[in-house]
């Protein structure tokens, strides 16, 4: 057996990345970032407000947390819907009790399904960012450009109308993108996105719109995501809490030792952490974050703005 010759050709074997979307850069070698008030760690709590359709296509793959038994999978449909009815209320109470500021990553379809929920989130004064139309509209490499553009447009138009906010942030369902997702996002006025999870600070990401079309990558940690740890990895809610607290303490200590601001990005799902047996663990996380000196609880766009102000 012999492989095609291209398996031993390496056209992108060169200094830097194997693509031109962003520059190669080591976190430890960058100019220090200082957060407002001299904080060590910027805290982005990203609360997912999601709709998982019952008639999931699952193409090219089902979203994590999606339908998994034969149609009609009422079991998973309703477990996810629980988040928008019950879980979100518990999460909001917990966040407010400890003064932690959330940012909500909202599927466009939720605006029509739960209009009062959107009104409630907006009335809090918290930031809304877009998370595509619903959890089954996965952006992927084989996606048609016209279809993707329509999806982004529909999502942003709907959320901007319903919230009255500029809606300049984006997190894709399943963290998945096509080759052109960043280009389409910039065309539609998006200024930062969370899907590129390769860093612990914001960084500049190129699009086909050139210098004017730069978008900021604001990495939304997957490894600390509640669904990743509790849902997919089957860790207990208290093991989850321990890991988040360890991350917070480590980043605060590293920032204090190096004089370089750090980012703690927490992706949380009310359909998961808002369950009665888990909310206590989430509360203990929030209590720890609130009690830790040097943690700046901010909206995603505030963190992006603070970072951007320190770039050349």
């Amino acid at each position: 057996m012999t492989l095609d010759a291209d398996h031993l050709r390496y056209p992108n074997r060169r200094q830097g990345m194997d693509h031109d979307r962003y520059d190669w850069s080591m976190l430890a070698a960058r100019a220090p970032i200082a957060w407002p008030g001299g904080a060590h760690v910027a805290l982005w709590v990203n609360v997912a407000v999601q709709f998982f359709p019952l008639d999931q296509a699952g193409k090219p793959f089902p979203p994590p947390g999606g339908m998994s038994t034969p149609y009609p999978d009422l079991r998973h449909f309703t477990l996810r819907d629980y988040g928008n009815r019950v879980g979100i209320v518990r999460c909001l109470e917990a966040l407010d009790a400890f003064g932690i500021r959330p940012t909500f990553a909202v599927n466009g379809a939720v605006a029509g399904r739960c209009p009062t929920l959107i009104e409630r989130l907006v009335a809090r004064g918290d930031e809304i960012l877009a998370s595509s139309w619903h959890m089954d509209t996965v952006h992927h490499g084989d996606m048609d450009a016209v279809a993707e553009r329509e999806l982004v447009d529909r999502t942003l138009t709907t959320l901007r109308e319903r919230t009255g906010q500029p809606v300049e942030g984006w997190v894709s369902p399943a963290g998945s993108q096509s080759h052109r997702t960043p280009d389409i996002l910039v065309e539609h006025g998006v200024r930062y996105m969370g899907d590129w999870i390769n860093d612990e600070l914001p960084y500049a990401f190129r699009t086909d719109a050139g210098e004017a079309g730069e978008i900021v990558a604001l990495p939304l940690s997957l490894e600390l995501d509640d669904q990743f740890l509790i849902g997919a990895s089957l860790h207990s809610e208290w093991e989850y809490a321990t890991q988040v607290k360890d991350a917070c303490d480590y980043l605060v200590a590293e920032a204090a030792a190096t004089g370089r601001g750090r980012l703690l990005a927490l992706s949380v799902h009310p359909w998961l952490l808002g369950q009665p047996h888990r909310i206590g663990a989430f509360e203990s996380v929030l209590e720890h974050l609130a009690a830790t000196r040097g943690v700046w609880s901010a909206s995603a766009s505030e963190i992006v703005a603070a970072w951007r102000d320190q770039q050349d």
Partner: protein
Amino acid sequence: MRADLDLYRYRAWDERLPIRWPGGARLAFWVAPNIEFYELEPPANPARRAWPRPVPDVQGYATRDYGNRVGHMRMMDLLDRYGVRGSVSLSAAMCDHHPEIIELCASRGWEFFSHGIYNTRYAYGMDEAQERAMIEDSVDAIARHTGQRCAGYLAPALTHTERTLDLFAEAGGIYTCDLFHDDQPTPVRVRSGKPFVSVPYSLELNDTIAYVVNRIEPRRYGEMIRQAFDRLYREGEHGGTVMCVPLHAYQVAHPHRIRAFEEALAYVVGHENIWLATGREIAEHYIAHYHDLDTAPAGGIGDGDAGEGGTP
């Protein structure tokens, strides 16, 4: 295909010539950071896809890129604090993409061994000339960039052919990390008849297996390391044992995981009578003192050479 490649002879754990490590150490402890490059759009190997999702698999790619941007520096600082030198399992293309990382390792006196060109290029399906070219390319790149003549091999993404170890020995190598059959070095038969040895490189304690495959909690990972150490240290009274912790900065260096690893590392290096070695040092010591004894026809006890098909 063959039922067994007859790479080594059978010897039960309690039927060995006792190994004595330098300084009378009971246990040789080595840490193998994998420093890897995964391509965004590699050619598709017919036997194995590089990414589970359609290209671009943003989540998979960015997860690995995190190691290069954030993780390695954090891991290096940690190993420095405990006086542990890394034996780097290196995607040779890292020399081209991120020479800064190579320099940081070299300045610490770390060893480099070959882990292929990219961790997204698999040996499956390569003919002999192709696999030899890939191996020689990796050895040459490491020599060119680091001045080190590469002694060890870990196949890229653990993808092998029946000839892999023969070819690496012919390229000048003396040890492999690809075999998991023992807690001591073992002579490995290669067709050239050169002295060649398997140095234990634990998959069980490999952080990627622990975190990505087995999805365990960070503190449990620390417990596993301590438990493995306790047993190998105790058994090392009777004959030197080897303990390896293979690492991937994109897993272990996350802020919620690194402290648990640090505690385990502090526990290990806090013991006396351990040899903080590199893979090459273990292989060279074994070859210099034990290899001939262990391969001599009448050499020792329990010669289990009579497997089906015998020796090639």
